């Protein structure tokens, strides 16, 4: 174990900021993508539902590491010169999207039949039904598993170090290569991951309390 050079922590902090940014983009993009995906799961056409199932099974059944390498090497082969950051973000969006989609699908399935019937009996048009009834209910039903995937996304972003995305894990590895302070640096990196995940978790809990206070009080007795 060598000494830890000054500035290491600042470098790690910078890496953590990149990780957080990657995760934030992946969560935002993945959520939008997942909403589109999840609607496929409820299509009237069996083919469309099969496309959904295939996508989810393939993406969920592939290690993120393999997926990252695949996209990283596949994009240039398709003549798309993007670099690791775009490729890395894309991989995360594709991966997290499949996980979110399953979360949302579960949420839609959890909507009680009477709620559908109420919406139907009011003659609500599809978009209004989605915006005013389905989305708010699914949000409330799926917040805990949704936050779970968000936390996982932060940690999963570390895999992108394999395709030379400079984020917290790669920053840590670089410092370790120069200083050999393996445990100190990895410990610091782990602590930073923990802080980010813990923060997300707390945020999720607050949101949950906020949403459930408004309207679901009686159901949690």
């Amino acid at each position, binding site marked *: 174990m060598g000494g830890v050079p000054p500035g290491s922590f600042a470098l790690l902090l910078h890496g953590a900021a990149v990780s957080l940014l990657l995760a934030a983009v992946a969560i935002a993009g993945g959520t939008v993508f997942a909403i589109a995906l999840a609607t496929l799961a409820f299509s009237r056409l069996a083919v469309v539902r099969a496309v959904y199932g295939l996508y989810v099974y393939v993406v969920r059944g592939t290690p993120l590491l393999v997926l990252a390498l695949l996209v990283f090497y596949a994009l240039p082969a398709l003549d798309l010169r993007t670099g690791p950051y775009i490729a890395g973000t894309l991989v995360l969006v594709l991966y997290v999207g499949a996980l979110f989609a399953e979360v949302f699908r579960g949420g839609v399935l959890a909507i009680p039949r*009477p709620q559908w019937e*109420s919406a139907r009996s*009011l003659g609500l048009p599809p978009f*209004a039904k989605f915006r005013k009834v389905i989305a708010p209910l699914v949000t409330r039903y799926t917040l805990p598993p949704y936050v779970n995937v968000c936390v996982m996304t932060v940690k999963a972003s570390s895999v992108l170090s394999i395709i030379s995305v400079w984020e917290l894990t790669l920053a840590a590895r670089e410092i370790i290569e120069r200083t050999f302070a393996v445990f100190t640096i990895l410990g610091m990196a782990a602590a930073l991951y923990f802080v980010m995940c813990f923060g997300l978790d707390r945020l999720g809990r607050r949101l949950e309390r906020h949403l459930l206070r408004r*309207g*679901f009080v009686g159901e949690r007795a």
Partner: protein
Amino acid sequence: MIQIRGLRKWFGSLPVLRGVDLDIADGEVVALIGRSGCGKTTLLRCINFLEEYDGGDIRLDGEALWYRDDAARGRRRVSEAEARRMRQTMGIVFQQYNLFPHMTVLENVVLGPRFSQHVPAAEAEALGRRLLTRVGLDAKISAYPAQLSGGQQQRVAIARALAMRPKILLFDEVTSALDPELVGEVEDVIRALLSDRIMMVLVTHALGFAREIAHRIAYLAEGTIVELGTPAEILDRPKDPTLKEFLRRMR
């Protein structure tokens, strides 16, 4: 007016409606009674197409609802957009209230007018407040359903159905899930609707209430209307032996 002719429905191989004919005149209140499984709730749900049906037709003021007979392709459901338009002429109140839990009382009532009928926000809100005052809940406008008693929730559900300015109101055992002391407040609200001269169909086990507010009572058994008449005819001078037996058990 509503005209129901030869309504038939199966659940798989089990017939639940075996040819129901029923006319409901403007301003008329009809109660559907019968033991559970006789098809009365299914009939009610067919009227606003929460259930599909296999034969027969339902007309509202002469317009055929829910299905079209097409010479080339046979009997077909109307399009979703048409079904939505038709549903807006009806209001239904469910046994379990079925309010949207994430919306306030006022939001629940205003939802239909706002987003199905595209009534401007201010106008819809004024209508909502007026209706909630009418059902005695103007003080609970910003409460959430979970903060209300069953009776209060059911009154909100009635206001929500009325907000569509329906031609016909359907009530599906609306007091069955309520504690006995809350039944009266909901019945009072329904009673007060009589002055609107709106068509109403009530599925109910409350025979006393049916006698009081219904112009006619239909007794269903095994998927058909076995006896139809004034409350006095059905409840005091029943002819059908199964109806006599049913009334004896209800006492």
